[in-house]
């Protein structure tokens, strides 16, 4: 052990504890009964009770919101994997007039901030009669994140040997067969990143869901949590449990796929 590294360890330990502490303390609170809140927040729950989760899940209707979040995020992630990969395939391999120009127009879309677009987006959805349908949220999610995903998949395709496609074409496969049987399977590592990241963004988004899903039976976890924690400011156990119902699946996914999330999010900082 090199003694010169001691201050490095000290700084890293303190800061990483500060980063994790809010989550750990939230887990503690979520498992405490009301009388246990008289003790300091950093004292673990003893005994742990699950009433807060049961209450948020049933009385807070988080069972409904959870189901809604799963439906929207799963559809978002699967459609994004297909649509972004198809478009990326065209940009990477096909020769057609306007290839460059279209790519530039998509680059502009990387800048579109949803916070600025929400008003006209609402007007568009309203004119299609899509307000208070899941379709509105799914369409907006996909459209806004498409440019980013097309770019990362295109970059991946461009690094593959071009002969693969030519060889498949010589064997008489049509364009869609080449895409579906050869290129899509080859793109699996990047498609996994697309699926995970789109699922994460979809799961965590508030604004689009707040604006387009105003009816309670359609609410997702983010909107549910927004209202729940607003009404339960004096119920730290309840708010903590509600927050963890939203955060739990994401934390599990992150721990399982750290490499993919770190790769995707460092590239996706731009979105």
């Amino acid at each position: 052990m090199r003694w010169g590294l001691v201050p490095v360890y000290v700084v890293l330990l303190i800061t990483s504890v500060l980063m994790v502490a809010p989550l750990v303390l939230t887990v503690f609170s979520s498992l405490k009964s009301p009388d246990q809140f008289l003790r300091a927040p950093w004292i673990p729950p003893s005994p742990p009770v699950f009433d807060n989760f049961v209450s948020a899940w049933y009385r807070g209707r988080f069972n409904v919101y959870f189901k809604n979040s799963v439906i929207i995020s799963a559809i978002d992630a699967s459609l994004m994997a297909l649509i972004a990969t198809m478009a990326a395939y065209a940009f990477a391999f096909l020769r057609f007039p306007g290839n460059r120009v279209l790519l530039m127009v998509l680059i502009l879309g990387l800048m579109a901030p949803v916070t600025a677009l929400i008003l006209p987006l609402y007007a568009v959805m309203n004119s299609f009669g899509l307000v208070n349908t899941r379709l509105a949220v799914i369409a907006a999610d996909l459209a806004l994140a498409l440019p980013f995903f097309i770019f990362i998949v295109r970059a991946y395709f461009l690094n593959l040997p071009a002969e693969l496609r030519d060889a498949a074409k010589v064997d008489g496969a049509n364009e869609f067969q080449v895409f579906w049987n050869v290129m899509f399977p080859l793109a699996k590592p990047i498609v996994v990143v697309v699926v995970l990241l789109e699922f994460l963004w979809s799961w965590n988004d508030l604004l689009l869901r707040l604006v387009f899903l105003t009816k309670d039976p359609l609410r997702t976890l983010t909107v549910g949590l927004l209202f729940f924690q607003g009404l339960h400011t004096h119920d730290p156990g309840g708010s903590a449990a509600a927050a963890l119902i939203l955060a739990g699946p994401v934390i599990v996914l992150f721990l399982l796929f750290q490499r993919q999330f770190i790769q995707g999010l460092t590239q996706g900082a731009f979105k």
Partner: protein
Amino acid sequence: MGKGSLRDLGSACFFLAPALFLYITFVIYPTLDLFRFSFTSWDGVSPVKQWVGIRNYQELFSDRIFWQAFRNTLLWAGIVLFLNVFVALILAALIAEPIRGRVGFQLAYFLPAVQAGVVTATIWRWMYQPNGVINTFLRTVGLGRFARGWLGDFALALPALAVASSWMGMGVNIAIFLGGIQNIDPALYEAAKIDGANRFQLFRYITVPSLYHTIVIVLILSTIGAFKTFDIVWATTQGGPVRATELLATYTYKKGMLEVRYGYGSSIAVFLMLLIVLLSALYFFQQKREA
């Protein structure tokens, strides 16, 4: 344009159709609409969109709350940049040292980065409460005189929320910087060490200059991220107390969606959009120079 470039036209239409349909309908068209709305007094429902020329923009530039929201957004960005660029860079440099448990540290910094804005808001609102964990801690270590209701305090609500927001964003920047540092030629460090450079000098004269482009890009991206912030403020203070945490994004939402002043709300959004486009242009310029 030769015959070759038309060869794949049919397939290209097929492969691009779903993406282009979504993109044109739900990004390009609304973007154009946003500019159009900003010149009307539309209320979002009536069939008539009354054209009012630049009146919304005249009102905007004399609207004191708008300017406060703009100043707040800049202050927010300043705090986020200090923590998520300056501090993040130092932490990345420390993680890059030959230490044990690098993966564990990185995991700890990155875990908040996958949290939703509403989750971050819920956690930090609880921590900032008058009897929350931060005040309890201050009282326990004898600093009770600093305890307060953080989010109810005019001067401290905005910095307090910006810190919570930075908590969420820091891990991504640390990972970007760490990747950059690991790409620096180790020979540079070895040579400087032979010349007797200490850890601070290595950071100041090798790490920072080598990462110059990465730092500029992260600065721009973090500023854009700060300008877009909505969730964490909306789920805690909704811009309050009074207007202390009003940001451009929350003000747009309030005017447009809640007060149904679509035209006026759109003019705020146009301002926000132009700021972001300007910053994005800087980003592409920087990317090009690096390439």
